[in-house]
């Protein structure tokens, strides 16, 4: 028998961001965005910085996640992310600034750890902006 709901748990190192029931969760996997419905095969998957959509009864919620991992079980999804923000909580101005900063840094850097970090910052900022824009458009 298929479970009809997923229990979703989103954890960051400093708090439990979300603990809720959902019909479907769409996550930014390393191989592209993918959706999970109840009864999914158990899976461990790496996540990129990007948007996560939680579809519940009647309403969807969008989050910006900062990369991490997800463990998918038949009726449970646990997301471990470095950051996770609800679309409405995103500080657009700050993300904009972070984007500019990261872009500038990326231009002047040789490949290496700092470049990787700047690249990650860039992705996070892009994801935040994208999520914020989409949710404001409704």
């Amino acid at each position, binding site marked *: 028998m298929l479970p009809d709901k997923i229990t979703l748990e989103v954890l960051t190192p400093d708090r439990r961001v979300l603990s809720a029931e959902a019909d479907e969760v769409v996550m930014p996997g390393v191989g592209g965005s993918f959706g999970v419905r109840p009864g999914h095969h158990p899976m*461990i998957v*790496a996540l990129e910085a990007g948007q996560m959509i939680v579809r519940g009864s009647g309403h969807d919620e969008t989050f910006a996640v900062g990369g991490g991992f997800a463990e998918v079980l038949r009726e449970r999804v646990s997301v471990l992310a470095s950051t996770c923000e609800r679309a409405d909580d995103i500080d657009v101005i700050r993300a904009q600034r972070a984007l500019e900063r990261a872009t500038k840094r990326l231009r002047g850097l040789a490949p290496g750890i700092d470049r990787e970090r700047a690249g990650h910052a860039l992705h996070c900022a892009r994801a935040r902006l994208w999520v914020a824009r989409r949710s404001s458009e409704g």
Partner: protein
Amino acid sequence: MANLRDLRRRIRSVRSTGQITRAMKMVSAARLRRAQDAILAARPYARKLQEILSNLAAGVEGGQHPLLSEREPRSVELVVVTADRGWCGSFNSNVFRRGMEFARDQGERFAGLHVIGRKGRDYFRRRPHTRLSEHTDVFRGLDYARASAMADDLAQRFIEKKADSIYVVYNEFKSVARQNVCIERMMPIERNLEEKQAYSPQYLYEPEPEKLFVRLLPLHVQFQFFRVLLESAAAEHAARMAAMDAATNNASEMIDNLTLHLNRVRQASITRELIEVVSGAQALA
């Protein structure tokens, strides 16, 4: 023998010190609460990360990641986690002592210190040890981004083979009444992740387990470092609370003693004056 004025002045000064220590104790108690909450809040993440890691480690045969590479320790570095402020009993000095012991035991291999906290920086500035990096003001509004950036820097040193192993010495938060100085090896990562779980479903992995594992290990290092900082912050507040509690008690005990002394001195001088008056009157009679 002290005179009355000096005694009164002394009492006043001790009393105001006592007021300060009492206030600091209260502040520390509030901060401790917050620090403890932060530790608790980090727990679900810790548990899940550990779970996924051990699951992966069990599936990956001898996963070769640079962070796991055990090599001849020719260059050993130590991260010393101290506080930015004093007035917290032996909190800082315990760490100094353990750090110095560690450096001595490592002898030639010891390559230098990464100092966290203003107290540690000031202390080691006056010592011959090489300081590789210094960080202050980490604990006020401790956030994961800062901790993970610091952990990444350390991991980078290890991967580039500037350091063959990196240890951390810090105060572990045991309970409100107890802190415990401990030394842990951060890198290479200990391979004790292999404890098999009772329940482990047949997972699909995306990407393949080896790659996932490689992505997870840096996260593990970041998080462990974050945890160390959280522990140290809580231990600091607990230590300060205990120290300030003791100081407040000592102050009130001292006030009691001084007051007793003051009254004796006062009484003695009254008695002496009385005797003088009485014997003066007798002489005239």
